[in-house]
C-alpha cells in the first residue's frame, strides 16, 4: 500500500491515561504514528477512541502519560495552541458552525494562516483586506478539494449530513495541518459517499498530510489504513497491519462481545 513508512514518528503517545471520576476511559495506551501514513484507531463503542482524540487535540486534559508531536511534548497545551502546531481534527458528532455559510466555515479554518486583528477589522485597513482576499481564495480551493465549491454560499446547516462531514474535513484542511485526525468520517454515509471519502483520504495522505483515523466501518478501515491499533475498554489490545489485526484472536473476541465484525 501507500509506499514505505518514512521511519520518523510525527506523533508519539506514551502511557496515555484518562480518568473521568472513577472511570478509566483510556488506560496506559501507547502508540506512534509515522509521518505520511494512514493510521487507524478502532474498537467497540466506549473503547475510548474519541477520548484519545480529545486528549491529543487539547480539548481534554490528560490524567497521565505523554503526547509528543514532532518530538515536543504537547500535553497541557490549549486547543488553539495545538492547532497552531499543525494538528487539526474533525468531530464524530458534527461541529459545523451552523450560524455561518459553507465558505465561512472553511474561512475559520484559515484563522491561524492570517493575523489581522480587531482594529484592522473594524476600520477595514488595507492589510486586513489583503489577508481577507487570501483567506477567501485559499478557502475556495479547500472547498473545491472536497467537491463542495458549488455550495460555498449555502448556509452550512442546510447541507445534507454527508456533505457536512466533507465540510469538516475541508475546514480542518484549511488549517494546513501536518497531522489530520478524522473522527468517524464515514459514520452516517452511504456507500457511494464512502467510496468518495476513501479517495479523499488517500488524496490527503498523498499530499503529504499524515492521517489519524477513528472509524467503525471495518471494511473501510481495513481497505485504507496502513497500521491499526485496537482499543477495548480503554486498553490497547492489538497493534499491526490490517491483515494482522483481522487474524488476531483477542480482537475477534472483543468484537464478538459487542458487535459483528465484517471483514471484507
Amino acid at each position, binding site marked *: 500500500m501507500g509506499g514505505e513508512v518514512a521511519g520518523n514518528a510525527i506523533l508519539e503517545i506514551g502511557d496515555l491515561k484518562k480518568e*473521568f471520576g472513577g472511570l478509566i*476511559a483510556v488506560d496506559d495506551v501507547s502508540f506512534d504514528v509515522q509521518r505520511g501514513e494512514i493510521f487507524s484507531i478502532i474498537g467497540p*463503542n*466506549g*473503547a475510548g*477512541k*474519541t*477520548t484519545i482524540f480529545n486528549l491529543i*487535540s*487539547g*480539548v481534554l486534559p490528560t490524567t497521565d502519560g505523554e503526547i509528543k508531536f514532532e518530538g515536543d511534548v504537547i500535553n497541557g497545551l*490549549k*486547543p*488553539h495552541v*495545538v*492547532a497552531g502546531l499543525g494538528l*487539526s481534527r474533525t*468531530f464524530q*458528532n458534527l*461541529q459545523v*458552525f*451552523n*450560524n*455561518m*455559510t459553507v*465558505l*465561512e466555515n472553511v*474561512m*475559520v*479554518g*484559515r*484563522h*491561524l494562516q*492570517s493575523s*489581522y*486583528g*480587531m482594529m*484592522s*477589522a*473594524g*476600520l*477595514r485597513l488595507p492589510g*486586513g483586506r489583503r*489577508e*481577507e482576499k487570501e483567506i*477567501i481564495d485559499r478557502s*475556495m480551493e479547500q472547498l473545491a478539494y472536497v467537491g463542495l465549491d458549488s455550495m*460555498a*454560499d*449555502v*448556509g452550512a446547516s*442546510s*447541507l*445534507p*449530513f*454527508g456533505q457536512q462531514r466533507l465540510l469538516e474535513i475541508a*475546514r*480542518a484542511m484549511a488549517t494546513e495541518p501536518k497531522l489530520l485526525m478524522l473522527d468517524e468520517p464515514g*459514520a*452516517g454515509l452511504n456507500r457511494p459517499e464512502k467510496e468518495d471519502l476513501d479517495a479523499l483520504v488517500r488524496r490527503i495522505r498523498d499530499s503529504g498530510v499524515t492521517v489519524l483515523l477513528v472509524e467503525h466501518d471495518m471494511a473501510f478501515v481495513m481497505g485504507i489504513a496502513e497500521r491499526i491499533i485496537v482499543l477495548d475498554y480503554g486498553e490497547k489490545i492489538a497493534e499491526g497491519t490490517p491483515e494482522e489485526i483481522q487474524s488476531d484472536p483477542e480482537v475477534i473476541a472483543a468484537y464478538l462481545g459487542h458487535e459483528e465484525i465484517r471483514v471484507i
Partner: protein
Amino acid sequence: MVGEEGWSRYANIMGLGVFIAIIVVFGLIETIEPFGLRFRDLTGGMITFDTLIRIGILTIVVVGLNLLMGYAGQISLGQAGYYGIGAYVSAILCTMAPRHHLLPGISDTWWWPWLVIVVAMLVTGGFAYLIGKPILRLRGMYLAMATLGLGVVMYTVFREGGGLTGGHDGISGIPRLSIGNFTFWPIERYYWLVWAVAIAVIIIGLNVINSRVGRGLRAIESSEVAASTMGVDTANYKVQIFVLSAMMASLAGSLYAHFQALVAPGPFGFVPSVELVCMAAVGGMASVWGAALGVTFFFLVKEVLRARMHQLLGVGGEYELIGYGIILILVMIFMPQGLSFGGAKALEWLRNLKVFRRAGDKETEPRAEQAV
C-alpha cells in the same frame, strides 16, 4: 463568483444606504420644515430630535452589546455601568478640570472634551479588560450574575461617590461639544453629530463581524470546542469583544453627558442594563441592524404608550409599563429571533428566488452515540 461575503456586503451597503437616507431625510425635514411640515407635529410630539438623539446614543451601546451577546454568545447585565463610566469621566473631567485649573491651556480648550471622550473609552476598556479576564471564564447564568453584580457595584460608586460624582444630584454644567467656534448645539446640530458617530459605530460593527475576528467570534457562539481546535483563542477573543463593547458603551455615555449637560446615577443602574439587553433581544441578537431596530422599537412603544395609554384605556401612569411588558412578551413569542430576523428571512427568500438555487435535500441523522 459572488460568494457569501459579496452578498452580505451588498446587503449591508444597501441597508446602510437606506438607513443613512432615513436619518438625513428626517434631519432635513425637521430643520428646514418644508411647507410647515414637522415630524414632531405629525407624530403628536413623539418623534423629536430629543427622542432620536437618545435612540442614536443607545444604538451605540446596543451595537456593542449585540456583538458581545449575539455574536460571541456572552451575556452582560452590567452594560449600563460602562455607559456610566463614559458619562461620569466626561462629566468629571470636563467640569472639574477647568474649574480647578488642572492642566491649564489644555482643559480649557475646545478639544479637551473630545480628548476626554477618548480617555474615557481607554479607561473603560482597561477596566473591562481587567474584569473580563477572570469573569469571562464563567458561563451562562454565572456570567450573567457576575456582570449583574459588576453593574450594581459601578452604579453604587456613581451614587455614593461623594464630591467626585455628586451623589444623587450628579454633576451639572457639562459643556457642549464644539470644534473651534462651531458648537454642536442647538439640538439639531447634536442630532447630526450623534448619528454620524452611531453610523460609524454600526459600520465598525459590520466590519468586525465580516472579518477574521468576527468569524472567530461566531465560531465560539456556535461551537467553542470546534472554534478552539481551528486555532481560535477563545478566551482572548471573548475578552477582546467584551472590551470593545465596553468602549462603545463608554463612547455613548460621553455623548449622553454632553447632550444632557447633567449626569446623575439614574440611567446607569440595573434596570437600564436589563433594558439594554431587552433592546438587543427585541432587535435581533445576531444583527448589528437589530441594534438600531431594537432601540427604536423600544423607544417608540414607550412613547406611544406614554402618550396614548390614557386615551385608549382611560388609565395612565404606571399602567404604561404593563402594556410595555406585554408587547415585549409578544415580540419574543412570535419573533424569538428578534425584529431583524423577519427582514433577513425576506432577503433570503428574494435571493433564493433570484438565483433559483437548490439547497440539497436535508437529511437528518438520528445519531447521538459518543465514545465515552
